């Protein structure tokens, strides 16, 4: 189960910029969203938003779907995969194991 993903540096670099991260959060919070909608209330130009979208696309964090005259953007959760490493795996793993241990102890030592 090898997963082809953008290198971790590309993902981190894409999300390091606060404006770009804000753009990504808005996309993630929406089902699908257009450049015009993203620009509205963002305080930056549509051209700047387009540049951020380009970086996010290159990092594999965002996908686009053209429809008529509009292009709809959506977040690609798999794009964050390079950041999910052993440490995140075991952070979750051990917290779940502790919960299982609590249940087991109730059974064997009520």
């Amino acid at each position: 189960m090898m997963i082809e993903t953008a290198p971790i540096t590309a993902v981190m670099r894409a999300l390091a910029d606060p404006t770009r991260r804000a753009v990504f959060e808005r996309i993630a919070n929406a089902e699908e969203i257009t450049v015009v909608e993203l620009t509205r209330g963002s305080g930056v130009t549509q051209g700047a938003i387009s540049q951020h979208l380009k970086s996010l696309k290159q990092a594999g964090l965002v996908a686009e779907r053209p429809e008529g005259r509009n292009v709809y953007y959506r977040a690609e959760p798999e794009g964050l995969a390079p950041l999910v490493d052993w440490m995140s795996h075991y952070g979750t793993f051990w917290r779940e194991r502790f919960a299982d241990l609590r249940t087991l102890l109730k059974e064997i030592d009520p």
Partner: protein
Amino acid sequence: MTDAAVLKSETQDIVVDEVFPHTPETIWKTLTNGDLMGRWIMPPTGFQPVEGTHFTFQTTPAGAWDGTIRCQVLEVRPHERFVYSWQGGHEGNTGYGSRLDTVVTWTLAKVDNGTRLRLVHSGFVTPKNDSAYKNMSEGWTKVLSRLGSVTDEQH
């Protein structure tokens, strides 16, 4: 921004620390009895709570790695401290399934209402500041807010 600045490696620990309303003796059993371990960690193969013993856990394979976690009992101090190595993965993988050379340390301490059990899983080689990403699987929003605080520190 250079890659070196972002990917400066260091090792980090995972720590889980909880109080259980049971005696250290009871909790010790769940840590050091193979059958009981299998009921909350994973079933071990070849396990004996004896220093020097090699044993394995079987988990999900990835790439060239068959999913075997290789362990060796390093320290046994009944009802107080239990340490084993935890190795696996393969050079060819990144993220889950990459080379792993870590140590699991269990510490038990008697407290008023039971036992404080502390797990330290140490030796993770991670990109700088990676600990902020460790809860990613818990939720999209939480992840993003954490990413925010980390990446802000880099600016």
